[in-house]
């Protein structure tokens, strides 16, 4: 695989007032990575979470990642997992409501077969939703796709899953130290193909973890530029085809 050296410098100053596109002219084969499209600071909302709740930290990181990678010219998020969960969940809610209404309106003895049907249907829908969530969706937080029309139609597909690595209990010291903090672990899977997915151009996979304390200060305000830089570097690395 021949890589063209990308001549664009990583824009590290957050004070640029306007968006700058990457010099796509220098590498027509290569689609722009997330680091090359900057965000002006006025467009940011402040993200503040409860520092002591690991689930809030993870959710804030997940949301920031989704916002970062869904910007124009970057990936378009595929909402399949969310939609399946919404459809199954709301179908279950409506079945339960219909069954409840039917049971309330009709005599108990007459309503029994109907209520059985509704109950079994609800159980099926709920188990389907749980199984899908556990097996198919798993830790995935972002599935994105991008089509670029440079010389040929190139499709990229990126799948990102994240989880929290808890504080390891094998460390001998019982008091919290700076080396013993919960971390955010990202796994990225990247496929680049063309002509409708038939020929594979690039494939990359990477995984990295970093402590939450690198992204959140003591008040719980998120340093979004730091986080985005880390994510951008990981995504660009995987777009180059590094990793297994």
């Amino acid at each position, binding site marked *: 695989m021949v890589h063209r050296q990308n001549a664009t410098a990583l824009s590290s100053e957050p004070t640029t007032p306007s968006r700058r596109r990457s010099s796509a002219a220098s590498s027509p084969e290569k689609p722009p990575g997330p680091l090359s499209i900057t965000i002006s600071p006025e467009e940011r*909302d402040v993200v503040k979470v409860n520092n002591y709740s690991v689930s*809030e930290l993870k959710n804030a990181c997940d949301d920031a990642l989704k916002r970062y990678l869904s910007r124009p010219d970057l990936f378009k998020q595929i909402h399949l997992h969310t939609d399946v*969960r919404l459809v199954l969940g709301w179908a279950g809610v409506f079945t339960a409501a219909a069954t409840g209404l039917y049971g309330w309106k009709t005599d108990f003895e007459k309503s029994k077969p109907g209520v059985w049907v509704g109950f079994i249907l609800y159980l099926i829908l709920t188990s389907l939703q749980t199984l899908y969530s556990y097996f198919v969706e798993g830790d995935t937080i972002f599935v994105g796709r991008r089509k670029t029309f440079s010389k040929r139609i190139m499709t990229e597909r990126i799948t990102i899953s994240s989880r929290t690595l808890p504080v390891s209990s094998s460390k001998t010291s019982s008091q919290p130290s700076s080396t013993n903090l919960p971390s955010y672990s990202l796994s990225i899977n990247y496929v680049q193909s063309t002509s409708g997915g038939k020929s594979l151009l690039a494939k990359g996979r990477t995984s990295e973890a970093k402590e939450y304390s690198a992204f959140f200060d003591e008040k719980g305000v998120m340093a979004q530029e730091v986080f985005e830089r880390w994510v951008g570097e990981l995504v660009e690395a995987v777009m180059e085809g590094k990793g297994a």
Partner: protein
Amino acid sequence: MFSDELKAFRRLGFRHLLLQVLNFASVMASGLMLWKGLGLFLNTESPIVVVLSGSMEPAFYRGDLLFLTNPAGERYHAGDITVYKFPGADIPIVHRVMETRDVFISFENSTESRIIKKRLAKLKFPPGEHQLLLTKGDNNHVDDIELYQGLDWLERRHIIGKVRGFLPYIGYVTIAMNDFPQLKYAVLGGLGLLALIQRE
């Protein structure tokens, strides 16, 4: 306090709002289905009732929680505590069975009725679907004939179930929510707010 949450909602989009409302709705749906499922398995319209009057003292006091079952073929005996409700009455009544009577159905076809009578004679007691009952509260002076809306006997179809167990005092929560509807709406509103704001 809420401006942060509203900003978060606007940022995260419509799907996120649907997901959060789904959180709340699915909690309610699972509670409802648990209740209905319990009713189906125990064959009773209302497997858990609250004692509302003092007519069964000293056995049950107002505010006790009662657990009922109603197996289909089961016979009721004198001394059982049943919960019954007439269609059109607001509240179920918890009283003890004083007497029972059995009703036999005659069939047009004589051969059929002979076979059935033979089968029934083999059982120690006939099945309970066609029992008639007379009830009275332990703390009342008279039996319940006044409450039967013109009938002389309570029929099996009026009975919600037989009391199998109870928990004291817990029913006061339900009584409070019925007497003060604002409490009910406050609890529901609080639950809803919590479910909408919390992420999984």
